[in-house]
């Protein structure tokens, strides 16, 4: 894999990192509504993004390891 490929893959890693930090780092999600099965938004938003973050991070692993972005 050439350095262009690894540069592109590092950009993807950067975007994923910014996305997950964007979701969590500032508590803009601190609202009660909409609730999910009675659970305030604040709590279920945090929990649902564990699953999404986990899937995204898992799915870019082979791209990173094989594509020289690790």
């Amino acid at each position, binding site marked *: 894999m050439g350095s262009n490929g690894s540069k592109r893959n590092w950009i993807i890693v950067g975007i994923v990192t910014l996305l*997950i930090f964007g979701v969590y780092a*500032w508590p803009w999600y601190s609202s009660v509504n909409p609730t999910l*099965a009675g*659970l305030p*938004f604040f709590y279920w938003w945090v929990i649902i993004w*564990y699953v999404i973050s986990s899937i995204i991070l*898992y799915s870019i692993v082979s791209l990173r390891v094989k594509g020289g972005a690790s």
Partner: protein
Amino acid sequence: MITTAGYELLITFIVLFIIFAIVGFMGRTFRRGDMSQLHEWGLGGRKLGTVLQFFLQGADWFTAYSILAIPSAVFALGAFGFFGVTYQAMVFTFASLFMPRLWKISREKGYITIADYARGEFNSIGLSLSIVVLGIFATLFYIALQVDGLYAILGTTLLESFHILPTSSAFKEYSLVILFIAFLVIAAFSFTSGVRGVSLGAIFKDVLVWTGLLTVIVATLYYTHGFTNLFSGMPSKYLSLPSTEALAFSSSMLGVVFSAYLWPHNITGSWAAQSEDRLLKGYSLTILYAIPLALADVMAIAVYKIPSVHSFVFQLPAASRGLYVIPGLLVSLVPPWLAGLALLGIFVGGLVPAALMAVTVGNMTGRDLARMVKANISAKGQTQVARWAAVIFTLLSLALLQVIPMTYAFQFYLVGAEIILQFLPIVVIHPFFKFIRKEFAIAGLWIGTLVSIFVTLYANHYKVISTTLYHDLYIGFIGLLINIIIVLISLAFPKKS
């Protein structure tokens, strides 16, 4: 006088602890390696796959203290207390960013510890020694936190079985004896099995903790008839975060996010991975561990809703009440044997990370300190020193807690976490941008440390350290900013190439 329920709980607890000890010792024969070599004892031969990485990271990051203290914070403070789980996905995202590169360097050059890495990469014994000293100091008080959690578990167990109140003098005597036995077991299996023993112990612990947390969640929802009832009538700070707390919430989270995988024991666990691929997959899956933990934290609110839980928790003194929230839900809502199982899971949840910390301190002593004293020490000699250092460190940490009151130990821990953050330029920046000169690395580390300590003392008016925020900003970041400015001065003195 022991009740039938108390008897059931106690027997489950004891039997499972014995199984835990056996599992830990069995680690010696697990994927057998030459245990006289330090990388075999202290990094498990770098052979851990995705599944074992998941269990090891899960066990060492989600400790007894986090399982008990976050619900305690939610119970007392409301949504603000939830910051302790909100950061979890960011922790592993950040670790994923830099750890593979660090893993690769450690593998290629044969580094066992970050002090080892600092010595090799910066060609500086001074930097290596600084990391050993600061790392061991911080780690020692991290164990203190675990012991605080262990006391709450023993407090619950003895209260349920023998009606011994955690405030009584009898409790102090019994719990000390039990903790001594537990730490002896931990020291013994660290000595014989190293990271292999910790990994097997971690699987055992994670299974019990997951069972326990899921039990708490299901039982609480059953008794409260769902989330709507759980939250109804609660003050608004429990429903969502008040906007005035946003900055404190955010900076408390980020302080943990950037320092989490700078802790020497977490680096040890990560370097034990078999490949970059397994390491990254392990990290991404470990985030899922936060799901049951976060839901269990929400259940802390049920203390106000279920009378039996309320009366259990409120019979305890206000200062330590919070740590009894999860144990209270367990003993009040589920059958005694299941409560015993979950309590033991949380109990070993404090012991497993303590064992990894002991192995890490062992590695640093055997690899780094021993070579400073005796330059030509053999590989076998290093391992011998490391094993004994792990044993001594384990017992020393327990002894220290008998001398230093828990409130002081907690203050040292808060400062320790700020100190660990000062490793960031060396551990995170250096692998990617190799411009830092050793003189500035050392100066940045120590000045960042001293600034953090000074500002922390100032922010607490030179009294008991209860906050690491200064105007809602995490103080470790102030030290880190100065630290980074200092290491950037390296750019003014380009290296000869």
